[in-house]
């Protein structure tokens, strides 16, 4: 039985109507984004259900440009009269902005197309019982491991998300899409000899139910928790002085996201996130240097943000301003090469948008967001990275992290970390090593990168109200030379 009264066709019709009506009412630009989303979630604690549910949401976002200002209205009331009122109000609010400097969007191609994530097993076709059983069984599997008793609390969260969208703008672009996303999170506490260790771990991809099997999720969760327990039992505090540090794709990924992805956001650079997510140290560099010429790290450092990675959490083929997605080469051979732009900021940077505009719901404005940010590959294997290290650590995972709001001073605390001695990775575990470095300090110390890659998932936070955007953040393993560990 279809309980939803608005079909995709109805949604498209109302969006088409909105664009037509807004244009007639004098908007210089209008964009109508109809969103039909289905969110399903189950949370367990120590093998018992806390809560579960399915929420369907349908609504329309209206964004207009009028007299140089932007107005935005969203409503779930999809009758024409309501939508007309929303458009009139959006135009009125845009005009009331009375900006000294008008907002202008970059010129982009008109696109009419459809895209979707390839799905083998639709999540809506899997029974609730099977989904809950999966979570229950995984918890039992964790408990049954040799280390199971040490996992004193286990919170497992399964979230399944399907978003159908139709975007129509007054320039004639019309894009219909469907994206299926699966997320699996664990927040577990392991008890060991020195106390407890905790880990929040997120995995996710834009696939159907087949994601669990194809990505070996159960095996990954088992290994992850084994490492957590091992850390709680074995890790020892060590005073290491100046050493070499090798970080896994997971740690490299959070560095790529925080130290490069965020400061690369055009809206931050030019101040639009000033009171919320902050600004960017790139503005200092851009005063007297150009993109493509600013050295930020060693020549082997390449950082890419790519929404088109198949199966990725941040996957899309067209952004929420109807611009075709492509990989963005943020750092190329150690030089800042490109920044993330939507149409508003592409105009300010005197270029084209690189399709970085995303919105996380019908009631949220599209913003410049990362998609999948990663450390590009080098030409080594991990053993080669160890071989050249006399004394160092290998940081496989991280716990606490933060960075200032200009994205310059970062801190990453290691969770699973091992000592490297005389070119050999030992089984001696280092407790909570701290990388507290500037962005230049980090990238300038990199001397080698592996060929392999991994892609953990995170929800990128930005703006107010916050919009948690699913992203992959990962890439290859990275060696940094002569690092003074912090926090002492």
């Amino acid at each position: 039985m279809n309980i939803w009264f608005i079909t995709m066709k109805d949604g498209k019709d109302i969006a088409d109507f909105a664009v037509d009506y807004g244009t007639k009412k004098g908007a210089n630009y209008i964009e109508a984004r109809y969103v039909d989303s289905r969110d399903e979630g189950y949370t367990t604690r120590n093998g018992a259900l806390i809560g579960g549910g399915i929420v369907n949401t349908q609504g329309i976002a209206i964004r207009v440009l009028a007299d140089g200002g932007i107005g935005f209205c969203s409503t779930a009331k999809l009758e024409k009269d309501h939508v007309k009122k929303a458009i009139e109000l959006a135009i009125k609010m845009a005009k009331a902005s009375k900006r000294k400097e008008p907002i202008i969007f970059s010129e982009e191609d008109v696109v009419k197309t459809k895209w979707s994530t390839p799905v083998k097993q639709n999540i809506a076709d899997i029974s609730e019982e099977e989904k809950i059983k999966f979570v229950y069984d995984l918890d039992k599997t964790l408990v049954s491991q040799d280390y199971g008793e040490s996992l004193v609390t286990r919170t497992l969260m399964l979230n399944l998300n399907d978003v159908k969208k139709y975007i129509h703008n007054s320039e004639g672009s019309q894009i219909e899409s469907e994206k299926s996303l699966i997320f699996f999170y664990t927040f577990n506490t392991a008890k060991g000899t020195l106390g407890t260790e905790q880990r929040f771990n997120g995995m996710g991809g834009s696939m159907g139910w087949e994601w669990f099997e194809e990505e070996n999720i159960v095996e990954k969760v088992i290994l992850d928790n084994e490492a957590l327990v091992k850390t709680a039992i074995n890790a020892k505090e060590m005073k290491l002085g100046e050493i070499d540090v090798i970080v896994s794709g997971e740690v490299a990924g959070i560095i790529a996201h925080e130290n490069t992805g965020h400061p690369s956001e055009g809206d931050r650079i030019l101040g639009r996130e000033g009171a919320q997510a902050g600004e960017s140290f790139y503005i200092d560099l851009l005063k007297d240097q150009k993109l493509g010429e600013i050295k930020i790290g060693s020549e082997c450092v390449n950082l890419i943000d790519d929404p088109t990675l198949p199966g990725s959490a941040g996957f899309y083929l067209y952004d929420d301003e109807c611009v075709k997605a492509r990989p963005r080469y943020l750092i190329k051979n150690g030089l800042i090469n490109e920044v993330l732009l939507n149409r508003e900021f592409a105009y300010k940077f005197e270029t084209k948008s690189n399709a970085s505009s995303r919105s996380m719901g019908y009631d949220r404005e599209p913003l410049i967001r990362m998609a999948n940010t990663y450390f590009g590959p080098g030409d080594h294997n991990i053993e080669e990275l160890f071989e050249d290290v006399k004394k160092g650590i290998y940081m496989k995972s991280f716990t606490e992290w933060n960075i200032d709001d200009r994205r310059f001073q970062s801190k990453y605390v290691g969770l699973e970390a091992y000592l490297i001695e005389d070119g050999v990775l030992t089984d001696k575990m280092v407790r909570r090593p701290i990388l507290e470095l500037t962005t230049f300090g980090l990238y300038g110390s990199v001397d080698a990168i592996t060929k392999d890659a991994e892609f953990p998932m995170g929800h990128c936070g930005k703006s107010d109200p916050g919009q948690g955007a699913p992203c992959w953040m990962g890439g290859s393993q990275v060696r940094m030379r002569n690092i003074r560990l912090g926090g002492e």
Partner: protein
Amino acid sequence: MSNNFTEKALEVAQKEGATEVIARLVEGPNYQIRFSNSNIDISKQWDQSMLEVFIAIGKQITQVDIQDPTIPKIEQIVKQATNFAKRMPDSQLYATMESKKQSYKAIDGLYDKTIETFPEKAPEMVNVAIEKALEVGAKRAAGVLYFGKTRSELLTSYGNSGSYDTSFYRMTIRSFVDFESSGQDVVVGRNMSNIEKKFSEAGENAGKLAKMAVGGKQGKAGKYDLILSPTVGGNLFGQITDGANPLMLLLNMSPLGDHIGEQITPEDFHVVDDPHISEGLGSKPFDVEGTPTSKTPIIQNGVLVGLIHNTTSGIMMQTESTGNSNLTGFFGSGSKFLAPEPTNMVYSKGDYSLDEIIAESKKPTIYVTSNWYTRYTNMIEGEFSTIPRDGMFLIEDGEIKKPVRKLRISENLLKMSKRVEAIGKDRKQIQWWEVYTPTFIPTIKIADCNITAATQ
């Protein structure tokens, strides 16, 4: 207003076999104006109308949100959700809900009717704040203003019902003299009178702080006493008081686990969860189960004396609900459940003005006016770090000597709370990006804190 939506939700759920049901309708337009570089970037209106329905069949539970409810929509969605609940295992976190028939006392001052005309006036008021910031020395200002009105209507299957109206505003303004010299202020409330003056003062405070921050240099890592503005205290102490919640304890997300009944701060430190303050953005006469809200002492004379509760957590911990039940969830709207949630956290005022606290700071002390990105190594231990942003000032021999930058507070929540040295009398309400729970808190001074900086 409701067109019997709540009644219909109960009727459908019960007909399908639900044993306990909550229906809450929340309606009202909310607005936002975002600004940066002293210009309005976007003005928004959210035309909100949402029916939240919680359904229990014994201990099998689910919850569903219905946007823009209509009777046919409710009939079909609630029927489907009730049948979904039948397929759920029992919830570990659900025993029952408020079952006694309750009556509620209205809270004066939750609604100011002048909010009706404020949307017309709002852009001008934003510009008042911006202009004031510029007037006192800032070169540009950024920020966000939220405002609106909400009507909440509740009906439960135990016959508890009620409704209330609220108005609210919340503005954050951050001013800049240059890219690294900034200051921020937050102004929050429900009463719209003197709004121009309030916004002007916020702009002035932010602008002055930005100007004071000019010329700041990299600070030195080490041990310092810290003076935390209400904005910073609301975030850091909020990590402790928000942890006075059985849900957080159960999930090992609170540092308070073994400390109930212990002295966790000096004796002159008191905190209460108070849902009855007119201006409090968390104020309400009843919770989502229909339990009347009440004041709940959290820290009294420095001792952790209480937790907030809903009916289920009260049963689990052999006590009564404190009227703090709400629908909450982790990572996705699909799995909301009933759990305790704070209303307004209210910290007692002390005796000192900010000037007096500064004057009495003879050891090297840092005054931190804003912070962000608080993260934990371990939530049970309370090991965390956070990053000061905006104006931060080094105090020596009782005087502000110079602005400093690029430092990090790396501390432990409970160790830090025991070292509270002075409490200000300048209490104000904070709610912004980094402080989710509305918090009334004064300036607080803490001795001997660990400050770190990037090593290279």
